[in-house]
């Protein structure tokens, strides 16, 4: 029943890679499935064809959680890949493990690649950085939650996409319901309605500067009236047929939108590329709504998605290859291609400028929504969060939100439970870091 030997054993299956004569081989483990995975492979091919010294092999490892676990198991067995993609919720785990990764900034500078964090757009710069602002993870697929809407549905109902939740509740949702639609669904309650709720309204999410100042003593500040009012409203909307909740599965909530039953959907800006291929009606996107009763000056959301981490313990020439790949990846051309094909935001200002000058947003205005939202005015609490065992904390949130929406638990009780369970997990995580 122990996990470690099983993890270790599973790693043996992944270690056999072909070795070519003179090229330095590096491996990149990622969680990009479907169309995203195809684009990753294309970028890897482009990198391999762009020079003669290095060969990058991308390997798909499943979901974000599975990829992180595979990376951890590999690291413990001394068989780690050169590059591991780790998602937002896993950031505290990998950054907290001192000695697991070479900070991206150090890697680039040590290998003679010019680096200036100001080249990166503001919403992206901080999330995977340490307390001093040094970039530890190289932001890769950066997304943010935005509101997609079916233009036909909104026209039929005679409304426009809501800017605020007040507008949604009073105007948009009733009109859409009258027009025969389920007005809204969303795909990730912890990410969209919790983490980004705090960022959009510039509310503090955790002590220790949202957790960035270290794991010891970090406590979540989720038991807050604004978010409780939000979930009370969501529950009312569910009861009134103004909101469709289809469970925790991402696609379960996306499909009714794609099928035209749900008029608006809160998803990732990274969903844009996929939606453009699957959806048959005209659609567009706008910002994540906010509560006017909470703030009249909504702030930026923070990035979701994932970053690339250079794993510690690799030979110098492989680290050099990793640095070269990071350089290639963050070039304006590669970023623009990635952005255009997937909908993830371009992470550098140069790539954003290139997209603009190429007329990408004239052709697809909705593609700009994510980056515009990320570059909205920032506030004290909008650069991100850093909490350990956060995957479990998200599971706790999903569990309690499910209870709220099914009527099993009151909003107050559910949030009290989330607070208690999350703080217990945070205290436990602090102990794994050697603190007490």
């Amino acid at each position, binding site marked *: 029943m*122990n996990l470690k030997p099983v*993890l270790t054993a599973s790693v043996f299956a992944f270690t056999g890679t072909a070795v070519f004569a003179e090229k330095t081989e590096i491996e990149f483990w990622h969680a990009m499935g479907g169309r995203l995975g195809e684009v990753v492979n294309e970028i890897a091919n482009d990198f391999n064809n762009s020079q003669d010294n290095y060969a990058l092999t991308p390997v798909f490892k499943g979901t974000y959680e599975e990829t992180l676990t595979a990376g951890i198991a590999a690291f413990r067995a001394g068989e780690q890949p050169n590059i591991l993609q780790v998602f937002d919720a896993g950031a505290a*785990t990998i950054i907290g*493990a001192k000695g697991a990764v070479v900070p991206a900034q150090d890697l680039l500078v040590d290998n003679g690649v010019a680096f200036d964090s100001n080249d990166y757009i503001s919403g992206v710069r901080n999330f995977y950085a340490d307390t001093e602002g040094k970039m530890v993870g190289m932001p890769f697929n950066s997304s943010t939650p935005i509101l997609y809407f079916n233009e036909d549905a909104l026209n039929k109902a005679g409304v426009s996409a809501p800017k605020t939740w007040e507008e949604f509740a009073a105007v948009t949702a009733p009109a859409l319901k009258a027009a025969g639609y389920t007005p809204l669904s969303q795909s990730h309650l912890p990410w969209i309605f919790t983490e980004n709720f705090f960022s959009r309204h510039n509310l503090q999410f955790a002590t220790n500067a949202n957790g960035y100042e270290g794991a010891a003593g970090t406590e979540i500040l989720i038991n807050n009236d604004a978010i409780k009012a939000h979930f009370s409203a969501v529950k009312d909307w569910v009861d009134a047929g103004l909101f469709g909740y*289809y469970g*925790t599965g991402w696609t379960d909530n996306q499909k009714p939108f794609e099928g035209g039953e749900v008029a608006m959907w809160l998803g990732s800006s990274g969903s844009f590329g996929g939606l453009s291929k699957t959806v048959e009606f005209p659609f567009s996107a706008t910002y994540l709504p906010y509560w006017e009763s909470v703030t009249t000056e909504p702030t930026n959301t923070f990035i979701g998605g994932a970053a690339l981490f250079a794993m510690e313990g690799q030979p110098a020439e492989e680290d050099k290859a990793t640095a070269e790949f990071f350089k290639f990846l963050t070039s304006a051309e590669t970023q623009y291609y990635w952005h255009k094909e997937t909908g993830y935001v371009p992470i550098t200002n140069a790539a954003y400028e290139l997209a603009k000058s190429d007329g990408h947003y004239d052709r697809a205005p909705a593609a700009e929504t994510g980056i515009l939202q990320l570059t909205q005015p920032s506030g004290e609490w909008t650069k991100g969060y850093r909490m350990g065992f956060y995957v479990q904390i998200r599971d706790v949130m999903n569990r309690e939100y*499910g209870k709220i929406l099914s009527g099993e638990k009151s909003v107050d009780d559910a949030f009290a439970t989330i607070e208690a*369970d999350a703080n217990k*997990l945070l205290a*436990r995580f602090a102990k794994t870091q050697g603190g007490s």
Partner: protein
Amino acid sequence: MKRVQFSRPLFPYLLLIPQLSIILVFFYWPAAEAIRSSFYLEDPFGFGSTFVGLDNYRDVVTGSEYAKIARFTLLFTALVAFFSLSIALLLAVKADTVLKGAKSYRILLMWVYAIAPPVAGLMGILLFDQRLGPITHLAALFGWDLKLGVDYFDTAAAMVICSVWIQIPINFIFFLAGLQSVPRSVREAALIDNPNGLSRFFSVTFPLLAPTAFFLLIINITYALFDTFGIIDLLQKGEPGNNPMTLVYKVFIDGFRGNDLGGSSAQSVILMILVAGLTVFQFRYMERRVHYN
């Protein structure tokens, strides 16, 4: 019984080594590791770790959901074992009396056994899909708004149905073999004494099946506790949310998904103790009531 003597006393131990080493490597060593790490809180990457004594156990059993998950596990196990055994027994009894085309019926009934649990889970997802699933549509005809993954009860029902479905064939095979080993003379004698089929079954056939049934009961309990994992993982789509889960699935969620090695190890040690207790109970108290030939 004849006692076999080896001329060289060490030779039998040599023969045992392959088997023992497999048990050591794949059972005792991991089990010892699990016990060790259940007393630590360890950074997943293996850098920091803190000895916390019994804290992991305390946190597990006082967790807000643990009791609920344990209760669900018991109920789930009971339901899966009961339905997969009783349906298989019914099918076996009926198949035993079929004369024409008996082989085809039997093969059709055993066929499902070739389906791996994850595949069963995938089929479950398709059958119970919220928008397109035929079972969802069927339930809607009866006014049941079945929502897999949203409603606790509905997800539990889907988990039980898929787990039972995949387990029926193996039970069927064993019951059928058991039925066919009941001597014809006994059956014919019973037929003369008691014309009532149902009461004849319970007073004559079923007691003769008891060794098979007892064996299957253990197999089915173990199956429901541990092997339904793939089905549960697929039906929950890896995101448990407010869906029911079993104790074993929670070990996986906390360990593999949440990277909480200490907490997850403590849970697996608790499970080890439970299984040991269950085994002792089964063989001491239940086997007494079973008569082997």
